[in-house]
């Protein structure tokens, strides 16, 4: 708040930003007033995070101006933004806190680290001041607890408390509720109310529309790097927001290959672990492609890892062709007939410092070796066959996979499973970072797998892909399957509506 009691106003005008010639933001206006919660909405890739990174000084804007209370400001670094009173709470709270220090020290970190601060640390005063901040936002937490012992939501709140201690005027909360339980989110909303009362302007980014409509006064929707509109809460509703986020969705052409659908091959029952996957049930038949769609953070990746034995499940079973799968380890899951093409391609899908040949043969080393000795001929034959049938563009089998394009790397990550006995294929965001040409190749490969009678689970946040490719779509939100659609039953709007928790919250 300004000395005279009126609220500060932050204005962004005509903000534009390109990366390597590709525009991410095209002339965006955004206004944030002190004492309001302003929701910023948009589908993945709409430009929300880029805009907020410019506001928090992480990126420099190419065009446009920023001003606070009519005075232009220039933000070249996060430190500049902080000096201007703009703070950001990112999702990865752990990177911003020092785990082995106390809550009090973390809240007062800026003062402790500042070169202009006192030469001596007065511990009593420090904890007192930190406690005053915690009291102001209504957080009952001892300032002497170690941050590493806190829950994730408590850490988030400690970060917010730190912003207050640093006299923040504008705060960006980037999907703060994604990892929180309902009660924890309630606490956060209460504290956001406190920020509002203190005259602080809050940008609230969230994928969950019900909570957006609960806590925000203003709503701005972005799409394709542009602002669609800004309205106050009373002037709009969830359906209008969903429509604005998607725009006139041009449906991409996807070659849907017809495959005969057989008996149930995969059954998932009550699969759960932690807060990310909270009891998932579904079946997939032979030859069927089932898409699991959801927003980022809905628990899709976690679900796929549980089904593959990559992470331990707390509850639940996976059955493949009538036999319960061994989820103790990926090796067990593979033996049970499950294959996973993971999202983190370069870290988990392939070994980038190994050759195409060695990557492709990795899951079938046993089949191509006799009494422990690898057959070089069999390995090369398999490598050549896979490269040809999947259309992997590589200088040769000996090429390191690090030097392949994203799409060809993905084909290697898929190709290594095609010669195994896998009956169930899990694809986690297989088109991420893949160019258009390779994308349609990947869809063709997936279609062929279905035609061979495999059960395919396709996990994605790209709704258009799910609509084009899948026989059935399961919508996932907050670790649960909340809705099922048959092919042709749903539109992108429907999917986004359910994926954004567009239904009554279970109480």
């Amino acid at each position, binding site marked *: 708040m300004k000395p005279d009691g009126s609220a500060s106003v932050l204005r962004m005008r005509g903000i534009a930003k390109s990366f390597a010639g590709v525009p991410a933001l095209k002339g965006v206006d955004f206004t944030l007033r002190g004492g309001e919660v302003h929701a910023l909405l948009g589908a993945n890739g709409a430009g929300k995070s880029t805009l907020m990174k410019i506001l928090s000084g992480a990126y420099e804007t190419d065009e446009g101006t920023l001003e606070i209370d009519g005075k232009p400001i220039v933000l070249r670094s996060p430190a500049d933004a902080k000096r201007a009173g703009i703070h950001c709470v990112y999702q990865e709270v752990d990177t911003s806190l020092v785990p082995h220090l106390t809550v009090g020290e973390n809240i007062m970190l800026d003062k402790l680290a500042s070169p202009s601060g006192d030469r001596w640390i007065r511990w009593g005063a420090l904890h007192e001041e930190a406690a005053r901040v915690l009291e102001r936002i209504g957080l009952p937490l001892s300032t002497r607890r170690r941050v590493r012992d806190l829950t994730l939501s408590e850490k988030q709140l400690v970060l917010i408390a730190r912003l207050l201690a640093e006299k923040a005027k504008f705060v960006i909360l980037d999907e703060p509720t994604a990892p929180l339980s309902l009660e924890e989110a309630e606490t956060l909303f209460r504290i956001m109310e406190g920020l509002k009362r203190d005259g602080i302007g809050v940008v609230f980014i969230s994928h969950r529309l019900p909570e957006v409509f609960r806590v925000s006064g203003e709503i701005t929707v972005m799409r394709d790097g542009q602002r669609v509109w800004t309205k106050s809460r009373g002037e709009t509703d969830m359906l209008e927001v969903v429509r604005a986020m998607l725009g006139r969705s041009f449906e991409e052409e996807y070659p849907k290959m017809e495959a005969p659908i057989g008996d149930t091959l995969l059954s998932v029952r009550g699969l759960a672990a932690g807060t990310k996957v909270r009891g998932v049930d579904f079946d997939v038949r032979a030859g069927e492609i089932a898409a699991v769609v959801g927003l980022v953070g809905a628990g899709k990746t976690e679900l796929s890892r549980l089904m593959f034995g990559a992470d331990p499940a707390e509850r639940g079973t996976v059955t493949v062709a009538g036999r319960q799968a061994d989820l103790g380890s990926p090796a067990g899951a593979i033996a049970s007939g499950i294959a996973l093409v993971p999202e983190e391609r370069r870290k988990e899908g392939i070994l980038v410092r190994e050759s195409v040949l060695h990557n492709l043969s990795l899951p079938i*080393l046993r089949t191509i070796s006799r009494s422990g000795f690898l057959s070089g001929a069999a390995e090369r034959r398999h490598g050549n066959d896979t490269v040809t049938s999947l259309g992997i563009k590589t200088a040769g089998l000996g090429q390191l996979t690090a030097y392949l394009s994203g799409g060809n790397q993905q084909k290697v990550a898929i190709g*290594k499973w095609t010669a195994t006995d896998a009956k169930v294929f899990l694809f986690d965001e297989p088109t991420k970072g893949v160019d258009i040409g390779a994308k349609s190749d990947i869809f063709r490969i997936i279609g062929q797998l279905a035609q061979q009678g495999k059960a395919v689970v396709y996990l994605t946040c790209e709704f258009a892909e799910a609509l084009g490719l899948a026989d059935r779509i399961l919508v996932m939100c907050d670790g649960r399957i909340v809705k099922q659609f048959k092919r042709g039953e749903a539109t992108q709007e429907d999917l986004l509506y359910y994926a954004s928790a567009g239904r009554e919250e279970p109480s």
Partner: protein
Amino acid sequence: MKNRILHYTFQFGALAFIALVVLFFSLYNEHFFTYSNLTDILRSISIVTFVAIGVTISLMVDGFDLSVGATMSLSTVVTAALMVWYQMPLIVVLIVPLLIGAAVGLLNAFLIVKIRIPDLLATLAVMYIVNGIHKTYTKGYSVYNHMPLQDGTTAPGEMLKSFLWIGQGKLLGVPFPVILMIVAVVCAHVFFKYTRWGRQMIMTGGNEEAARLSGLRVKRVRVAAYIASGVLAAIGGMLFAARIGSGQIDAGAPYLMDSVAAVFVGYSVFAAGRPNIVGTFFGAVLMGVLVNGLTMMNVQYYTNDIIKGAVLVLALAVTFIHMSRKKT
């Protein structure tokens, strides 16, 4: 064109350097490039090569085994004690140290894979423990034929002739340890190049998580690697006992340094940039050649370490410059 020259420099630079060093010593001293001296060099590096292959295997799975020196020391004194104190038959003398090496490897693997202590720290701790065990076992004395014992008597046994032949004998004019070394290098190379388990170790070291998600039982692979490392260090210890004819305490300490140096010099051979058996062998050869040649030049032995260290720095510099160039 310039790139091609650079490429060949990195590819064959290490081998050219070895050739250059050999040429230099040959010109300097006429006794250097003789059959007896060259076999001498090979014999002198046979022990370090065994230990270095073990270290290579631990690095292959993206780990590190610092305990190999201590394991070698323990194996040396146990081998000698079995003969001198307990008068055991040859077969027992050959098997027990191997079991001890495997046990140390298993302990390392347990700490690293199960308890999840980082490799360097776990094997450092085990190095201390095993060092202490081998000195406690011999009460700080080396073990030799008919040595006086604590109770005033002398030890009953002596080192078996057949055992000493392993370290000192010759087969067709070639020292037996050299033959053992060459067999070990070839076997280890074949293991990593042509067997499923070798491939599994390489892939596990390449990216443990990706290997796990491809269905490898990466924990088992890592356990096997540490056991192999321990066993190879134990073989090094046995060879040392056979060579010297007694159980020296602390025999393995310098071998840890030398074997690690050989392995990292090996990174630069053929621009591999990663642990590899052939490179390790050439690394050991280079170190052996340097020590032998410098000794002939009457360079004091304590100066050798400076030169060994400088060569290691050179090899590492070449490797890492090459690797960062490849990235860009």
